[in-house]
């Protein structure tokens, strides 16, 4: 009698398990994701607060209009940044929050900073920083929550 033992449907297992040599260090990766999440969260929260308290919402609306964006967008954008920042800090559905913040930064890259040139230190701020910021939100979307996130506490384990 001969027994042949095979994996069932190897395509259905995750990519890390299929790779002969993992490309991610699973011991440190969750903390890297948390570092990115907390940095993005603080930055977003700061920008949201800046719009509400320093520039004030009508001031932000005026600024939006000056760069060719509809002024009323200042309100949802400020709310999204503040709330998104808090959710990222807490690690609640970070993946989807980051994806929701991407369009804001994408628009900021082209509409607000596009005319100032590439270099970050240009007058008005070049687009390299918002572009990096936008890419970082996409990276966060692909990475998920990382360590010390609340999503796993709130959601019952499957």
């Amino acid at each position, binding site marked *: *009698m*001969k*027994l*042949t*033992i*095979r994996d069932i449907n190897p395509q259905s297992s995750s990519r890390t398990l299929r790779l002969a040599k993992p490309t991610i260090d699973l011991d440190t990766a969750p903390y890297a994701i948390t570092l990115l999440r907390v940095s993005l969260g603080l930055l977003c929260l700061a920008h949201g607060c800046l719009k509400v308290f320093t520039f004030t919402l009508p001031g932000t609306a005026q600024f939006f209009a000056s760069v060719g964006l509809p002024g009323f967008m200042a309100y949802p954008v400020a709310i999204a940044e503040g709330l998104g920042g808090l959710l990222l800090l807490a690690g609640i559905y970070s993946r989807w929050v980051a994806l929701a913040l991407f369009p804001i930064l994408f628009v900021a890259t082209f509409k607000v900073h596009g005319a100032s040139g590439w270099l970050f230190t240009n007058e008005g701020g070049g687009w390299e920083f918002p572009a990096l910021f936008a890419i970082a939100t996409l990276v966060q979307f692909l990475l998920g929550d990382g360590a010390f996130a609340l999503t796993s506490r709130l959601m019952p384990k499957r």
Partner: protein
Amino acid sequence: MAQQPKPLVLALEAGTHWLCTCGQSTNAPYCDGSHKGTAFQPLALELDTPKEVIITAP
């Protein structure tokens, strides 16, 4: 020429499976205790993850 039996393909869960080696089992390919009195003992197959197991005779 002896007929070549078809290989048996099983989808087994993780855990221990007792496979009959004596040929007396009425629940082939699993052992049902019929090996009592023969020189044969069942074969224990331990799996930590679900696997596809193909049994070919002989």
